[in-house]
């Protein structure tokens, strides 16, 4: 998740591959937050993706500092 956050900040297109790995690793957890994250990445709207990632982290009970 920290890697994804970094790639979003750097406007890296590798973020989408890292997202796919993250989605697979979560095995359905945070599904409600995963959908907007996937949509934002698909539209290359990285600001929205970063917001969705923060929401996902909160849902999963991961404090921001743990993902940084």
């Amino acid at each position, binding site marked *: 998740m920290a890697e994804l956050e970094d790639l979003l900040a750097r406007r*890296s297109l590798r973020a989408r591959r890292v997202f796919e790995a993250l989605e697979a690793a979560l095995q359905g957890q945070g599904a409600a937050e995963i959908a907007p994250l996937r949509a934002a990445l698909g539209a290359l709207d990285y600001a929205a993706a970063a917001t969705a990632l923060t929401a996902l982290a909160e849902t999963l009970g991961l404090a921001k500092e743990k993902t940084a």
Partner: protein
Amino acid sequence: MRRPNILIVDDEVSNIEIISAILEDDHEVCFATSGEEALQVARAELPDLILLDVLMPGIDGYEVCRQLKADAVLADVPVIFTTALGDQEAEVKGLELGAIDYVTKPVAPVILRARVRNHLDMKRMRDELAELAVTDALTGLGNRRCLETRLAQEAARLAARGEMLSVIILDVDFFKRFNDLYGHAEGDRCLTMVAAALNRAMHRSNHLAVRYGGEEFACILPGLAHEEAMEMARSILTRIQALGIPHSASDIAPHVTVTAGVATAACRAEVEPQRWIVAADRQLYAAKAAGRNTVSGRFYDAVALAEL
């Protein structure tokens, strides 16, 4: 080996998708969807190559290119314009602004890959040549050109807040006698060992040791007060003595020693960076006159430095 980083700039997400699909397997790819964002990402990521759309809302590709070429850090990043425009006038304008190439959309994958590869190869070679131009071949330290460039950069940066800049110039004592006695191969080995010891003494990332020429070395020490720079010079002398390189032709010691001159002054925009070299050189001669294997230094005010 690091994968080259390519910045794609296009206001159409579908165009970014198409180009990234062509390049993503062999490159790190980042993107921007506006001219303003392109400049931000370029400054943050320092890409190896930029694929730049011409027609964008806000700052267009031409203006982005103009600003990139005016930026000292980004000016050498190759820019390839990508646009649906096919007219010669637009192509000439892009090339005149400093773009290295021009491709029209829809892009042919094979052609785009080949052009990107060629321009990345050329950039790598240019970067290597640029590095060689500021590197001393024997010691691997920076050379005199490196010193002059870095000194000018640091003096300008520090002048904004009137901060201190110190320069040390060092000379290997009786080096001609060393070469005459032990031969040039041993002379080169001696200089290489002295250079390595000097480099090890540079503790801060912005401190720089260079080979100034022959058996002379110099250090640029931004942000050091005069007494700290003097202490640094003394520690360098100790380090070089500790190498224990035999020098039976020296009048001072049975091993290689160096003499150092130190000049410190607060940076001012009106004082030429070269003044620090002149001042440190004078202190070096004072140290030689005092018997070598010693340090002489002075804190200069701006007037005294400018009058040298």
